[in-house]
């Protein structure tokens, strides 16, 4: 049988994935595992999901041909405009899917972790939409540096609980959310925001996000007469926007996959989040994957100027893309990402999230042919990052 880069029946992507969870989570994970495919393939579920994506989120998002960028780099550059989704990023595709699933499972309380606050906002939004109680765990450090998103979550009626353990950032918020779930296993669903965590989360989130790639196929067929681009490029923190746009192309090796990681202040600076280079195989948040850790197996704190790429691991799908060579990994430093925030703003009139800016910087790192069709996932808009942009560029 042909090698597949998608998940296998045991929840693994090659050597990565699985569910390395304490017994206290077993019943919940088992319930999800046995029901997520069945529920999400029911016609009524699909109809409600598609309907909300169209009328509430604003899908399909445009596939935009970036004329000036294409001319400058002498190639064909397309942007998948996930920044135009309601709440400003692709994150809501997943939260809509999971809230519908939670309802079908009879859950009455939602918890989530958030780093920069984008997933927290997307979760608070769907909870408001459905009238379900919502608790968001956020590192104490992140709460103070992402004040506008904290305010948005509160306006939407969510309770924001600070994670005060460990390094007080995303990984600790995730630990706290898992602890909450262990303490409240009956009434609560945990909406993980990326393609990380124990199986079936990486696959479930990737499926909900796959709407991105599926739309690209149709849209590209229309404008280029071919649904396959030469390259799909996306930034990778945990990896959900990348998983979403890669999804329909995973096993089509004619389409090259480029994953862009945050190098922070430089790969060897000690302040970086380039997991593919700096990480080793291990276990984080219930999944076997690549993660940044000490020699002794303690998980270390990554750094990136963009809070969304600031995760010490990467989803198991991406770990396998890296190890198998199916995906090419490139790491981009803060300064280049920030520069690309300006370039995209000034050449195309689109202010991107700093996470997203990392992806575009690849244009300076790789050579493309004139006939190449390149699709970037323009995963989020830059409003949330204005303070960082203001401070950096002294605007």
């Amino acid at each position: 049988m042909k090698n597949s880069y998608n998940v296998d029946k045991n929840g693994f992507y090659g050597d990565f994935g699985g569910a390395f969870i304490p017994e206290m989570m077993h019943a919940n994970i088992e319930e999800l595992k046995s029901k997520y495919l069945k529920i999400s393939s029911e016609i009524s579920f699909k109809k409600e999901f598609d309907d909300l994506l169209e009328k509430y989120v604003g899908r399909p998002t445009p596939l935009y041909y970036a004329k000036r960028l294409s001319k400058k780099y002498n190639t064909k550059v397309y942007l998948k405009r996930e920044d135009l989704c309601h709440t400003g990023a692709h994150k809501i595709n997943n939260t809509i899917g999971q809230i519908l699933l939670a309802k079908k499972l009879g859950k009455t309380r939602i918890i989530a972790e958030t780093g920069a606050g984008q997933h927290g906002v997307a979760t608070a939004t769907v909870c408001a939409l459905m009238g379900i109680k919502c608790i968001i765990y956020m590192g104490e450090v992140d709460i103070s540096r992402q004040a506008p998103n904290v305010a948005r979550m509160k306006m939407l009626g969510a309770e924001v609980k600070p994670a005060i353990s460990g390094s007080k950032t995303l990984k600790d918020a995730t630990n706290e959310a898992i602890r909450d779930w262990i303490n409240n296993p009956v009434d609560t669903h945990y909406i993980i925001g990326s393609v990380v965590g124990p199986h079936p989360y990486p696959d479930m989130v990737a499926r909900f996000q796959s709407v991105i790639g599926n739309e690209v196929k149709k849209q590209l067929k229309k404008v280029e007469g071919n649904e396959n681009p030469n390259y799909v490029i996306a930034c990778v923190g945990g990896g959900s926007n990348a998983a979403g746009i890669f999804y329909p192309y995973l096993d089509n090796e004619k389409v090259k996959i480029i994953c862009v990681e945050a190098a922070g202040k430089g790969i060897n600076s000690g302040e970086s989040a380039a997991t593919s280079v700096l990480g080793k195989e291990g276990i984080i948040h219930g999944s076997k994957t690549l993660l940044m850790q000490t020699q002794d197996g303690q998980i270390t704190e990554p750094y990136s100027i963009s809070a969304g790429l600031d995760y010490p691991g990467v989803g198991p799908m991406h770990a396998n893309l890296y190890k198998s060579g199916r995906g090419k990994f490139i790491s981009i430093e803060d300064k280049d990402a920030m520069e690309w925030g300006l370039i995209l703003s000034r050449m195309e009139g689109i202010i991107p999230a700093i996470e997203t800016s990392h992806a575009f910087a690849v244009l300076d790192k790789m050579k493309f042919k004139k006939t190449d069709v390149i699709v970037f996932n323009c995963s989020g808009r830059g409003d949330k990052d204005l303070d960082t942009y203001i401070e950096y560029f002294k605007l």
Partner: protein
Amino acid sequence: MNRINKVLNKKREILSIYFTAGFPDLSDTTSIIKSLDNCGVDMIEIGLPFSDPLADGPTIQESSTKALKNGMTTKKLFEQLKGLRKETNIPLIIMGYFNPIMQYGVESFCKDCELAGIDGLIIPDLPVEIYNNNYKTIFEKYNLLNMFLITPQTSDKRIRFIDEISSGFIYMVSSFSITGSVNSFKKEQTKYFERINKMNLSSPLIIGFGISNKQTYLDAIKNSNGAIIGSAFIKHLKKYGVGKVSDFINKIRN
């Protein structure tokens, strides 16, 4: 016979104490073990500190963070345990998360456990199935018992499976809660204890999580072969230091 099995065969009302290696000070590990042994504790769980202990509560996480800051590592722990077996015969269990063990190398870890006189392991994030398929033979080669957890949500069928592959005791999580969250047991918990006891399992049961004082200890041993205390002991260590270990144990036992 493994020291754990010996203790399990001999008595009920077992008191097992958990502490984090390298806390409060890096060099406290062996003196804590010896003090616990001297005050008549039956079994000891040595916590191998981890940066992200997601099945543990804030007290154990905090002690782990401190222990790591103090410089505790897996290698260091084995060095500290060297020679200890000449001084004590108490059953010793290492409780740790899987990632540090994986990085050390599972086989090297088990080998060094046996050399240090460790009798068993509790690895909360190593699921039963993965252990059974991949690691059981290695653990057995080095004479290490592996203890599994069950919770109020674990199905009867799964409990039977766990019972079948257990060679030490079954670690019965007292409630839905992570370590250190309750003060007294509720009705549902007692019902759960009764349900499990009616199953007549072949493995002895030891109750852990949420046992913090004499009352919860007495409740626990009424329904099982023994109890494990962790967070409450760590709090005591933090407040009074290693010199006052016996005060804590006496309050539970007398």
